[in-house]
């Protein structure tokens, strides 16, 4: 079985004009004994009508803001689904391998 999920590649393609998944690789050196780095991805892009993958709440919020209420926090492009990653953790009793959830952004939406 695949230890590192391949669902990353099914995310929305990068498009500067809309909220979507963007490749991002970061160091895990301060967090885990392994892996050294991981492609955790990020969600980026504007949330304007029509919103990407919105909830009903986000659509109502966007309408409210577009009607002139600019002081409210506008819908923001964030991860809406994650993949797990296999990581190496260290405890006093020993070194462990485990599946760490919510590590890799796999889908984005306006929230």
């Amino acid at each position, binding site marked *: *079985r695949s*230890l590192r999920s391949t669902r990353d590649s099914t995310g929305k393609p990068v498009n500067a004009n809309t909220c979507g998944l963007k490749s991002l690789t970061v160091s895990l*050196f*301060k*967090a*885990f*004994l*392994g*892996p*050294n780095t991981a492609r955790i991805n990020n969600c980026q892009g504007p949330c304007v009508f029509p919103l990407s993958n919105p909830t009903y709440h986000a659509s109502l919020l966007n309408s409210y803001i577009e009607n002139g209420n600019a002081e409210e926090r506008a819908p923001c492009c964030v991860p809406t689904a994650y993949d797990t990653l*296999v*990581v*190496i*953790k*260290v*405890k*006093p*009793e*020993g*070194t*462990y*391998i*485990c*599946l760490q959830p919510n590590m890799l952004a796999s889908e984005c939406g306006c929230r």
Partner: protein
Amino acid sequence: QSSPQKRQCAFKNTTANKIFEDGGVVNGSVQVCESTQCCVGYYRIINDQPRVDILACDIVEMSCPNNACIAQPAQVLNNITSIKCACNTDLCNNNITWTS
């Protein structure tokens, strides 16, 4: 990584992490890697000496440029100093090259 010969790595699993057994068939102290050319070793530094916790086929990292198992920079996690090494020859993870 398209070598017809499967990599063999030293195998030791002191904390019985089942996930490492997914990396390939284990026969005593040797594991035949199913999907990697890399061997790995994980150690904790106890009384200034590395104590091996895990030797196995490396199912976590993506690359292993070295022939021999040279320790990577030490990491301090949960107040414990650990080192690891990865390498790309048969049973290369039997010995870690480390200087304190």
